[in-house]
């Protein structure tokens, strides 16, 4: 018997108020007509209009999107491979080093990751731009993907794969036809995680971006250093809306998938009888 007391209710209310009020205030004030951000002067969508006419912001958004799509896709492929290696490959030379390199970027301060990658790019003479940001983002997000995917692979029933191999599948076919569909939800959430990490990253992008490529976080950072601006409030609202829509859709989809899978499993159990 769980007793949900008034204390629990209060702490949940206050806790969620703390988590959400700052963002709600931000969203409300993005519709403020006044240039002075903290003084309410009536409802207006003026700042959204200004934002959409601001070439610099649009360019930065386009660069950010390209980087995020490219880096999260490569990271998902490499991260899934790495997860497979970690869970399935058994012993091989340098395994400890390999798992160390998977986990280390997760705890490495961003300033160090950024600095080290920048020094590498300078040493090999690679011009900084979109490509270098993609390489940098892929490197840290593949580690996150591999952690997400390997947690799913660990609980995966291996006999399914062995059955496919016995029935004449090649290892790659067994992976594509049996393993991948089952771990797909983890792979997709790995991709989403990599995508948001890339969208969000300021520090590593600042080190690895050259003057030719500015990402949205870099642009936001340089303008909020000068103080709060209504345009940034509008931009934040758009980004929050996109993320909220994405997360809610993803959770609805995964709920439906879970329901369907449960139904299929019930069918499968009933079928042989």
């Amino acid at each position, binding site marked *: *018997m*769980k007793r*949900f007391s008034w204390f629990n209710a209060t*702490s*949940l209310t206050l*806790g969620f108020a*703390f*988590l*959400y009020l*700052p*963002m709600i*205030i*931000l969203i409300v004030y993005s519709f403020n007509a006044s240039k002075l*951000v*903290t003084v309410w002067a009536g409802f207006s969508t003026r700042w959204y209009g200004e934002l959409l006419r601001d070439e610099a912001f649009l360019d930065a958004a386009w660069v950010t999107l390209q980087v995020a799509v490219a880096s999260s896709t490569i990271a998902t492929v*490499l991260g899934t*491979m790495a997860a*497979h*290696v970690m869970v399935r*490959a058994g012993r091989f030379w*340098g395994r400890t*080093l*390999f798992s160390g*390199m*998977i986990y*280390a*970027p997760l*705890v*490495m*301060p*961003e*300033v*160090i990751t950024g*600095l*080290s*990658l920048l*020094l*590498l790019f300078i*040493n090999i003479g690679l011009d900084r731009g979109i490509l270098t940001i993609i*390489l*940098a983002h*892929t*490197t840290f997000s*593949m580690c996150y993907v591999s952690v997400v995917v390997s947690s799913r692979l660990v609980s995966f029933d291996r006999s399914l794969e062995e059955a496919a191999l016995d029935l004449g599948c090649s*290892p*790659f076919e067994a992976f594509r036809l049996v393993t991948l569909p089952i771990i797909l939800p983890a792979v997709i959430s790995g991709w989403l995680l990599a995508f948001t990490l890339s969208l*969000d990253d*300021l*520090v590593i992008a600042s080190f690895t971006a050259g003057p030719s490529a500015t990402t949205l*976080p870099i642009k*936001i*950072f340089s303008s*909020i*250093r000068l103080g*709060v601006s209504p345009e940034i409030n509008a931009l*934040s609202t758009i*980004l*929050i809306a996109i*993320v909220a829509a994405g*997360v809610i859709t993803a959770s609805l989809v995964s709920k439906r998938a879970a329901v369907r899978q449960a139904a299929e499993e019930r069918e499968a159990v009933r079928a042989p009888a």
Partner: protein
Amino acid sequence: MRRFALIAMPYAWLLALFLIPFLIVLKIALSDYALSIPPYTPTFDLSQGWQGVRDFFAALDFENFVFLTTDDLYWKAYLSSVWIAAVSTFLALLVGYPIAYGMARAAPEWRPTLLMLVILPFWTSFLIRVYSWIGILSGEGYLNQFLMGLGLIDAPLTILNTNIAVYIGIVYTYLPFMILPIYATLEKMDDSLLEAAEDLGCSRISAFWLVTVPLSKTGIIAGCFLVFIPAIGEFVIPSLLGGSETLMIGKVLWEEFFNNRDWPVASAVATVLLLILVIPIVLFQRNEQKQREAEG
């Protein structure tokens, strides 16, 4: 052969883009500052053959690390980073534990929704979440307007650009990392243990301290490390919410690199920061290991 390719691809990627860059940082930390491009010396000169390699190694030294100990700025920045991270972690625990506790006691059908509400801010841009506090905490910000409107204060409080704002920023952005592991341990807890404690004469409050808290210990430890470790090297929060008094090593490294363009010192700062981080990371992994063993 296929197995080799599977291992080799991610392995090679990580070697090239994680390990080698890190070795370059180490190497530059041992080099000297120079007015050239790149702004350090020595550089590898393979045209001189073996002699070039020997000269290269002979020119490396620990001068930058000695410099870090002689200049007050650096060791103060390391200490103050650890201190700010520790205070923020403690505050995050105070704020996060009651939330995790409330979630674990909520009706089971509510829990997935509550969990999603905790995770949702984590998916929202970190930069925007930090930014949202600038408008709240500034001199003419919403908090001061609110408090002055209520008549609680006469003059605006100065919070933005102080360490208090940094604490608030760290607690706010890292709170999900504190809540989730604590919630995970609390949710698994067997409630009959509490009933047993009460049957044996414990008050509800002492049952909480004697049963609930010890049983959630691994969650508390995990949550604390998950906040403490990234907070030490934090850059965005001190540079947006902190002021001139806020000394954090992430910010020092950034300024050393971008403003002073002293790459060797920036690299040495990074190396020492990593050495400092090794201790909490090892302790954290030991805690995780213990938890896994306990779960069998």
